[in-house]
């Protein structure tokens, strides 16, 4: 199997990570995710994720007079993001360590 493991780029996690520093509206989230994480979120995917995260209380909408409503991560969302980041960090650490023992592995 070759190529990127796209299913690991979990869209809810990307959106939470994008909102971790400051509130953003939909377009700003897609731009941020594309520029900093290298993943393009389509409009359909983004708003399916926003609806799901909002339903679970992980993000919340802010007041806006504009059609572009910004979203903010909640305390529960920040906690969920921290837990998932920790888990991914462990997976990445184990992966790097084991890959380094493979003969001929020159990266990292």
């Amino acid at each position: 199997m070759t190529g990127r493991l796209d299913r690991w780029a979990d869209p809810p996690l990307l959106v939470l990570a994008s909102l971790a520093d400051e509130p953003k509206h939909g377009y700003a989230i897609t731009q941020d995710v594309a520029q900093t994480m290298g993943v393009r979120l389509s409009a359909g995917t983004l708003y399916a994720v926003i609806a799901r995260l909002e339903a679970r209380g992980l993000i919340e909408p802010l007041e806006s007079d504009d059609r572009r409503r910004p979203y903010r991560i909640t305390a529960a969302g920040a906690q969920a993001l921290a837990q998932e980041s920790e888990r991914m960090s462990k997976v990445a650490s184990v992966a790097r360590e084991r890959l380094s023992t493979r003969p001929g592995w020159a990266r990292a």
Partner: protein
Amino acid sequence: MTPPTPAGGTPTGGTSTGGTSTGRKLLARAALALYPPAWRARYSDEVSALLDDSGAGLAAVASVAWRALPAWICPPRHLHDRPARMRASLATALLAWSMLAGLGLVFAQLTQLQGLMAPGYAGIRWAYAVFDGSLALSALVAGLGGLPLWLLMLRRARREQRARDTLYLLLPVLAPVAYLAGLVATAGLVGGPNGVSPSWFLAVTLAGFAAAAIAAAGPGLALRRLQPRGPALHLAAVAAAAAGAIMALAAAAMAVAVVILCLWARRFSYYHNFTTPGIYLALVAVAASVTTVSAARGARVALAKP
């Protein structure tokens, strides 16, 4: 409280030509029209703004359209007026259930009542038994679970002298009675020693489906107009899910019997081609799917924590 200023990228979508932009906006509006009303009311402006800002093409609009399907199947709970969701699911499930019951009665008429037992094919006997038991149990569960809600609405319609709603609520009784009276009269006028001709059978069958649709639509309309709430609505929603699941078992039994009769026991059934049974099974599958999905959605809301 002043909300924090959101971070934002620079929109890029203002550069498209007028014709392209208008066409894309129309497509985007069509894609958003596919979503449930509550979802549209909450997010459609934002999605439109995102599509405008990003200058998105057909692929982005197609992704919006594609995501409408999960929004219907698994609607976000925070968006819904829960009683309205239960009422809508109940009305849809009732209509689909009545169509499925009609298809089941056609199945019984064309198989069991014709004596198509096919000795040596135990599967058919089992399928008939499962179908009979499931149909009866499903009707019982739906009737008992829906009765308190029906009585509640009927009492309110009569108390408030809402004649039209009273009529709607009585349609589940009036429509079958009228149909049976018509059936008896038709059989007396055009029936022979071997029953009625195929064309009359088709006419009677279609009239039966029309009567079933009218009988189911009545309470559905009353639900929409009277907007009941409370424990009776919750009970009806949960009972509908149970009745729908049991009815799906009846549908599976129908499918098993028809497939056995078509593939292995043709000399008993005289089914020499698969077109009619295939269309029949497709209709059964559609009706069973709509019944179970709608009823499950209503029950999911009824059982969810407030």
